[in-house]
Structures are given as C-alpha cells and as structure tokens.
C-alpha cells in the first residue's frame, strides 16, 4: 500500500486563488481546434465533404481521415447540448415523439436536437450524416441509437462489432474478427462513400501521429501522481481528452495540442501548483479522489464546484478512459495498422469486464495515492451503472479506502438534484477525513 502522508489541516489556508482565473494557452488552443472542427462540419454541405457519424469509444478517427470524411459525434453533440442547457428541451421533444423516459438521454437529446433544427454548439446548423459507422464498443445502446438514426436520416449504416472482454483479455480470435470486419465491411463502405481508395501507408502516418499524442496525454494524466496534483483528472480531464477522443487523433494539430498541454502541466508540477478550476487555481489540496463514471453535463460547473470548494481534486478517473486506456500501455501502432485499430476498439474502458474495472480502479487508488474513490452513477448508462454497487464494495475491500456513491444523469436536468449530491459529497468527504484521522492515529 502506498504510504500516504498526513493531509494538511482543513481550513488552514484558502482553497482557491481567484486572481489566477486566466485561461491557459492549451485552453485557447483547444477552443480553436473544436471551433474549427464544428465550422468544417457545418460547412460540409457547401464544401461537398462527406460526413460519417460515429461514437467516441472505439472510434476509427484515423481511418475516417484516410477517406477525407468528416466525423459527426452524436455523444459529443449531446453533451454540448447539456452544457448549453439545451438538452432538457430536446429530451422532452423526443419523449413527446414516443421515446421512453427509461432510455439513454444522449439518444433522446440527439433525436430531439435533430427535430429541433440540428443546431450545433457554435450556433450553426449541423449536417445530417451521409453514413452511420456503428462501432459497437462497450455499449449496447449504440446499436439501437444508430438503428433509430438510420430511420430518421435514411442513410446507410455499417456495423463494426467489437467483442466484449468478458474474461479480461483480448484473444487472437477477437482481434481477427474486428480486423476482418474492417477489411470486408468498414473499409469498402468508406471507399464507396468517399470515392477514395484506401491507402494503408496514409493510415500508418496517421497512427504515428496518434501514438505521439497518446504519449503526451499519458504524461498529462500521470502528472496527477504529484502532490499537489497539477490537474483535475475528471472535471479538467474531460477537456484534456476532448481532441484525442474526437476528431483530432491522428492529426498534427492534435499532436501540437498535446505537446502544449504537456508542457503546461509539467511546468505546474515544477512549480508545485494545483489544478486550474473555473474560479481559479486550487492552492490547498485536501482530498485526493478517484472517480468512476461519466460526469453530469447539465450542471457541470456546479458539480465541479462541489469538489473544489472542499479542496477535493480528482487524481484519476475512468471516464477519461472510455476513448482508450493509453495509460495502461496501449498505443496505436503504425507497424500493425488494422490490428492496432482492432486492439484499440477492444481495449476501451467500457469494453472491460467488471472484475477488470474493479482492478483498474483499485490500482488507481493505490498508484495515485488517493484518499478514496467516488462513483457517479448515471441513470442513462447501464454500461457503466449496472454493477457499480458491487464495484463500490469490492474496491473498498481491496484498498481499505472509503467509497462514495452519488447518482445523476448525463444530460437530463431532471435527474440532477444539486442539494442532494452536495450533501452526499460533503458527508462522504467527512467520512474520508475521519477514516484518514483514524489511520493517522492508529
């Protein structure tokens, strides 16, 4: 077990430095990147660029780029709608059309957004996809989601089935199955859509860039092992993963972004600075936590504030691994382009078995010197949520650290009860403190 030094006494100094509310260079860089992506997407009907809708976990960004296609990411559109307070209206619209209140709100938000004019986060109308590339990695809902969209858009779809790592391993047969689908289904479909012949050397070039960015992302995430942590690996982490989980893996811009970000974070480590929050730099790290599960997007700032107001920093999270477990060693490999894409799809966090998830979270608690771990269980996502109460008990048993459990939703504002969540987080942190105090006196 990691030897955890005693925590600073709570309340001995201010937690935040409001004078430091300035945007880092990487933030501006990312804003430009994401803005350029949405502009390109919005202009695609004029430019004639074809679009392909796909999902974040197990996405084939480099392959899509090889055909000059522009990805549409419905999950990202949904979470952006959540952050812009639009999702509630879209969800209601979808439910009015007959979609059940019991199902994933990403799906309903996406369908509601389409029926309400398909306006993207930059205010521009987004195009409908020319093709649906269904990468079925770790989420059953994805399959039904694209079947629903296919009915809406009337465009063709291609399925890439990614076998589940039920026993915590990727077998040669699993990999071969994914590669075979890439060769016989996905690549021919994208060739037909784009009119571009597949160039494996171009894919190799893109995978080389991917691996470079992945190295830098891992350095950023692992910087949270420092004390104080220079980053928040959950609330800040979702920004850090943005470019690499979406349209910029395999691009030079993506590499440049992660190099800038890494340099910033390494500088923060050298200066022993805490993470940036919307209200300034955290100067008093009181709790180090690991978080499992996606964040809530409708009240993202409010949710984050509940943590930094208490001096709680998230040092590792599972959500930032849904688009790839790079910190466990995986890198896209130009020497095995299609095999590497297959391994990537197979290895995403949501494709891990429950025992492997328990193992990973327990390892994070130890490796990052966490005081405890917290599960944000979201109603929408059975892929994450089913089994989390057992995960809670198992990780507690293995690590001896306190586990907490809160419930919310991805983009349904009706399922975010701020007072309840705040109360639970405060109670949980008190429990962590008591446990820590008991450990220190033992």
């Amino acid at each position, binding site marked *: 077990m990691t030897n955890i030094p005693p925590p600073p006494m709570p309340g001995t100094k201010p937690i935040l430095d409001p004078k430091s509310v300035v945007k880092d260079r990487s933030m501006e860089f990312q804003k430009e990147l994401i803005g350029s992506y949405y502009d390109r997407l919005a202009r695609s009907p004029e430019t004639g660029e074809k679009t392909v809708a796909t999902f974040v976990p197990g996405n084939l960004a480099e392959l899509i780029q090889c055909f000059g296609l522009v990805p549409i990411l419905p999950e990202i559109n949904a979470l952006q709608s959540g952050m812009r307070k639009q999702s509630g209206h879209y969800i209601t619209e979808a439910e009015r059309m007959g979609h059940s209140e*019991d199902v994933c709100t990403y799906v309903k938000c996406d369908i509601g957004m389409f029926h309400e004019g398909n306006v993207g986060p930059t205010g521009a109308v987004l195009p409908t996809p020319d093709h649906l590339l269904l990468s079925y990695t770790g989420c*059953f*809902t994805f399959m039904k989601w694209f*079947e*629903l969209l296919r009915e809406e858009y009337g465009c063709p779809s291609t399925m890439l089935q990614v076998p589940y790592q039920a026993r915590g391993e990727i077998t040669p047969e699993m990999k071969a*199955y994914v590669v075979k689908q890439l060769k*016989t289904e996905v690549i021919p479909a994208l060739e037909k859509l784009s009119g571009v012949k597949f160039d494996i050397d171009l894919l190799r070039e893109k995978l080389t860039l991917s691996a470079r960015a992945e190295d830098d992302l891992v350095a950023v995430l692992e910087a949270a092992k420092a004390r104080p942590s220079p980053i928040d690996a959950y609330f800040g982490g979702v920004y850090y993963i943005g470019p690499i989980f979406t349209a910029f893996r395999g691009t030079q811009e993506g590499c440049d972004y992660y190099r800038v970000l890494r340099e910033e974070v390494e500088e923060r480590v050298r200066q022993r600075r805490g993470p940036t929050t919307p209200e300034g730099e955290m100067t008093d790290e009181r709790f180090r936590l690991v978080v499992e599960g996606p964040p809530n997007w409708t009240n993202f700032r409010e949710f984050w504030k509940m943590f930094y107001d208490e001096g709680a920093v998230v040092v590792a999270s599972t959500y930032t691994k849904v688009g790839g477990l790079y910190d466990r060693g995986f890198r896209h490999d130009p020497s095995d382009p299609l095999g590497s894409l297959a391994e990537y799809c197979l290895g995403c966090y949501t494709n891990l078995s429950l025992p492997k998830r328990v193992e990973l979270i327990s390892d994070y608690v130890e490796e990052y010197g966490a005081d405890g771990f917290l599960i944000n269980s979201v109603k929408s996502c059975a892929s994450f949520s*089913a*089994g989390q109460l*057992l995960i809670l008990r198992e990780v507690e048993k293995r690590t001896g650290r306190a586990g907490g459990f809160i419930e919310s939703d991805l983009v349904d504002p009706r399922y975010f009860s701020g007072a309840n969540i705040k109360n639970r987080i405060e109670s949980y942190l008190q429990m962590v403190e008591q446990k820590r105090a008991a450990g220190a006196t033992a």
Partner: protein
Amino acid sequence: MTRTTAELMAFAEDLYYDLDFKSVKRWKVKTGGHAIGFMPVYAPREIVHAAGAMPVGIVGAGDWLEVIRGDAYYQSYLCHIPRSTIDMAESGRLDFLEGMLFPSTCDVIRNLSGMWQIVKPDMYTRYVDVPQNFTDGVGGQFWAHELRTLAQELGERTGTEVTDERLRASIALFNENRRAVCDLYSLRRDEPARAPTSEVYLMVRAGLVMDVEDHTALIREYITAARNITPPELDNARVIVVGAFCEQPPIGLIKSIERSGCFVVDDDLILISRWFTDNAAETGDPIEALALAFVHDSVPTAVMYSAKAGRGKAVVERVRVARAEGVIFAAPSFCTPALLDQPMLVAELDREGIPYTAFKFAENAGQFQPIREQTGTFADTMKLWSVA
C-alpha cells in the same frame, strides 16, 4: 394414460412456481447429469445438452420472491431480472448449477456476467458473445469459434466430450422440440380459445427446466389434449404481444390481458424456444450447422442488429401471419433493447394503420387492474371501430 389440459397445466404451474428448481435437481440425481444455467435471450442449448448437462433457463423470479439481497446490487433505474437473479444466487438457490451462461442481450446482463465472476468465483461462467455480423465467413466464423470454445470448456467441466456425433443428436432433439413448440403456437394462432396464452406460456416455459425430450413429449401431449376440449365461445380481439423477450411478465399479467378481451395470437415470450426460424442442419459439421443457423435463421428481435432500415417490417409481418388486429407493447421497465426498439416498430405500425397500445411492467408487478383496463379498452376499440 392421457392427461387433460388441466392436469398438464397443474404440472407446468408447479415448475413455474418452483424457485428451488427441484425438477432439475431430481433430474441430476436420476441421470447423473449436470446443469448449466443460461439467461435470456439466446444460448446454444444444443452444446450444453451434448456436454451431458441440462440447459436451465434462468429468467428471473417473477412476483413470488421477495428480493432483498438483489436490491443491494442495483440502482432503482435498472430492470428487475438481474436483481432477482443475483438474489437467487446469493441465497443459494442456484448452487445446483455447475455453470452459468450470460448472452450478449444487453449491458445489464453483460455486466452481470462479470458480477457473477466475483460473487460466484467457483462457478463456471461464460459470456456468450453472439455475432451481430451475419456474413458466413465473418460473423459466422467468429461465432463458430465461440461455440467450439464453449463446447470444449463445457466438456472439460462435465467430463463429457462434445463429440460431433453427440452434438448432431442434440441438434436433432432441439429441432424436434422447436417444431413441437411451433406447432403449439400454430394451434394457438388458429384456435386461440382452445389454447390460451396463459396455458401456452406455461407449457413452453416448462422447457426451461426439463429434459428436452420430456418437454417435447409434454408439448405434444398438451396439443392432443387441447384438441379434445370444447373451447369457450369468445369474441376476443386478436393481438400480438411484443417486448417481453427477456424479463418475463408475471402470469397474472398474461391472464389479465386475456381476460380483458384479447386473444394473444403471437408473442416473443421465452424466445429461445423458437429462436431458429428453420431447422439447424443435422448432418455435416454440427458447430458449423449451429453457427450458420444463427447467422441465417435467427428470429428478428430487438437484441439483434438489423443491417437494413425498416426494423418495423418484421412486426407488421407477424401481425399479418397471426391475423392479428393490433399490437400490445409490453416491455419491462428500463429494458433498453425493447424500449429503444419500440419507436421504430410504432412508426411502421402507424404507416400500416395497425392499432397498438403500450405499457411497461416488472416481473414482480402485483397490480394488474390498470393494465386490464388499458388492454380491455384497446380490445373494445378494435372491435367497435375497426374498419373490418
């Protein structure tokens, strides 16, 4: 001596309510065989059988088990079948099983396969990752490998090697069983008053905890007995029930639908009993036969990917074949596959002008009056105002 439908029903009801699986335990003692559980929707029962084990359907605990431990594993916004299943595991009710198969039905059952590895570390556990690609050399090949692995592992577990000969014999037995069940469904479709769904359901469900040959004989016996009764004269509306392919509705709910004035002339309950729409080949490589039967002849259902648009066309075809007047959507609460599928089916029914109604249920639901009123009104509406 030939049994009456009432006597056969009493037999099937005993099995239905037996959460201690006494019939399976008796079978094990009698034959020295093993028992391997499986959850909905599809598991290759032929392979389990060929390995000298009875495939035992674990489809929840209905409304007659008070779930206590299971609720400690699941949040309120997840369906009921996993909580009753793990409750049965925790209370020792499933200790008679040598193994458990978890098909890739949805994320909840998928994750339950991992929970099982933790909760029941000594039990053989396998996730059955069925193909969603239906090309012979792609999804078919992957599935054949999965089946071979399963056959080998089960053989090692039971001590009975799954030889080609044994597997071909098992395929033949399950083909015969499927034909019997389909004959029963045809009888109900043609003469629903003679074979009501509350009876047909229990007869088919009995197959989850019986030896396959005994179950085939039971179904045949019921068909004969049902043909000998004088059915009541009823002017019910003909409906099909869609959405209850995993978590099962309590029998009281099925009876309520019928008593409200509906003949249920098709359904997707206990779908595994008629999963293949054609016989699996009984000659040649039996693994290939099962793999190809799956990729070519699986019944269309929400858990299977549809490579082409028009998901609702299959339900319209079922309405036509069953000569149904309308559709009742009965999905378990929080059932992702059924509830995400439903809008696509509804859209097609709207296009075809086929009436429908929808409600949700949980396997432990105890109050059926609102559903009875809803389906009764639906039946009346169809009878009074239908164009025909």
